[in-house]
């Protein structure tokens, strides 16, 4: 196990700078999630930590040691790839024990470690199979197993759930969370899915256009977004961002109100809107409405409701939870 420190990390491809002065400290045993839209640099940052790409500027410390010049092996990290990257000609057991065989560890030791990891991940019955004979979820577990066997200082996971179907993704997400609880190893997890980030992370690092927008616990990011970008990125459905005269009422260029902080009211509504779509999810109902002079608004209501498309409704908002932003997207006040 080890802590990590990124000091002014930069990455350029020719004249194009893709990461700008990334500063971040990750504590020993922490589960940190890098999240952001496509092209924000989150996978690049993970690859720099892994040693798969060269760091253009800055310094990386793993376990207090300057690690910028070290090879991936010397960094003692393990990585789970988006595509799993299992060696197709090897069995599950050979895949999991590959790194140990490279270190010329004795065969009984390799077998023991592989079997131990297989037990943890419920892979015992699959050890003699080839990756081509496994389902997506099983391959994912083998990829994680290959990482566990090495007992690394840091686990890096690059969008490991993106190739799984929705049900399996939720299941594997829980398994990875439990694995972290058990191993207590530092984990850095990259995803573009903010739900994964919110549910798994001790801390979330939100990246945008090669810069860190905000670092914090999931609830810090949800309750106190440092920028308009973070406010819009965290939360599902997305926060309503309203500009124009409606925002000026609050001395802001943009105001943000989360869908769950809206309500449909009959007494003294703040705005009147016409419903354009209703999504009924059982445990909650999402109503999309168009408000004159404000624009489209999303409202998330707990429970089941019978609103109809075309119906005009009054909207009320919890004013204590209105987020105000200036023209640069920074919070006001």
């Amino acid at each position, binding site marked *: 196990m080890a802590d990590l420190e990124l000091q002014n990390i930069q990455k350029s491809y020719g004249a194009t700078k893709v990461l700008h002065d990334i500063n971040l400290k990750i504590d020993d045993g922490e589960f940190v999630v890098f999240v952001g839209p496509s092209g924000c640099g989150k996978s690049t940052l993970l690859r720099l930590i*892994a*040693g*798969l790409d060269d760091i253009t500027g800055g310094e990386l410390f793993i376990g207090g040691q300057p690690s910028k010049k070290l*090879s*991936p*092996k010397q960094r003692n*990290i*393990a*990585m789970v*790839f*988006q*595509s799993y*990257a*299992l*060696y*197709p*000609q090897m069995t599950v057991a050979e895949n999991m024990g*590959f*790194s140990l065989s*490279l*270190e010329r560890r004795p065969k009984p030791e390799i077998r023991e470690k592989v079997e131990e990891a297989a037990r943890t991940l419920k892979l015992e019955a699959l050890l003699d199979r080839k990756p081509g004979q496994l389902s997506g979820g099983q391959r994912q577990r083998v990829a994680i197993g*290959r990482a566990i066997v*090495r007992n690394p200082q840091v686990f890096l996971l690059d969008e490991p759930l993106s190739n799984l179907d929705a049900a399996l993704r939720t299941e594997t997400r829980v398994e990875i969370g439990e694995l972290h609880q058990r191993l207590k190893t530092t984990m850095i997890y990259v995803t573009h899915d903010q739900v994964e980030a919110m549910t798994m992370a001790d801390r979330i690092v939100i990246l945008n256009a090669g810069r860190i927008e905000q670092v914090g616990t999931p609830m810090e990011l949800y309750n106190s977004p440092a920028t308009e970008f973070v406010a819009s990125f965290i939360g599902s459905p997305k926060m309503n961002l309203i500009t124009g005269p409606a925002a000026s009422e609050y001395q802001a260029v943009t105001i943000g109100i989360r869908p769950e902080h809206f309500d449909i009211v009959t007494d003294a509504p703040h705005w009147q809107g016409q419903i354009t779509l209703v999504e009924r999810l059982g445990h909650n109902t999402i109503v999309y409405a168009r408000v004159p002079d404000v624009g489209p608004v999303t409202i998330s209501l707990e429970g089941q409701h019978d609103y109809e498309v075309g119906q005009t409704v009054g909207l009320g908002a919890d004013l204590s939870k209105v987020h105000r932003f200036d023209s640069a997207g920074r919070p006001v006040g």
Partner: protein
Amino acid sequence: MAARYLVFGVLALIAFLMTAPSAMTLFTALKPPEELIRPAWTPPTAITFENFGRVWTDGGFRRYFLNTVLISTVDAIVMIVLASMTAYAMVFMSFRGKLALQVLFVVGLMIPVTAIILPLYTTVRSLGLINTHLGVIFADLALAMPVFVFMFSSYFVSIPKALHEAARVDGATELQIYRRVVMPISIPAIITTGLLEFMWSWNDLLLRLVLLPRDGMRTLSVGLLNFQGVQTRDVAGISAGAVIMAIPVILLFLFFQRHFVRGMTAGAVK
């Protein structure tokens, strides 16, 4: 339906035209001397293997065959190793001068052997390798290398980069990745390269004619010329020699056909 018959007829005609020379060669090789005056497309009425025996012993084909097997086998094996290693470096590694090297190989693809045969002869002679199998092997490898580097590169680019990266994270050196990760999943490319290089080497005439003047060092393709004089031609001998020369290549193709097709089409579609 008529169109289908027409297509079938055209394909049958093409198949006939392609197999006819081989069939005529085989018929001639199997004919006794008294039947040789009959047209070549008529099958032998009495089959004899005397021509094969004559070519193998008196014609020196036993020696030529061993020379050819030696050169072609070494060519194929060394080419697999050299071309795959070069292609591996081209595809998976970053180094200074990579682009220049790639351009050099592309240029190499464009130069015909006949255009450089004299400088090649001079080079091999200056190395003291005229009349040696090693000289021919060096020349074969140098001339065919760009083709097979290109072939291996085409195959390697279809291997996910993540596999290479996963092996690096696992602690493998480039040589270990090459040997334990990349090559075991490149069997079609290995077989295609081995087979093609073996066949090219087996069939080549020009280089062997120029670089191996001594009879004891010659190969089958050069040996066939022994049956052809200025005024006369031993048709049965040439035919029997050609059949002997063709058999190993045909057997290899039949044995590795499945892998060969996969190797040739690698990278053609996703």
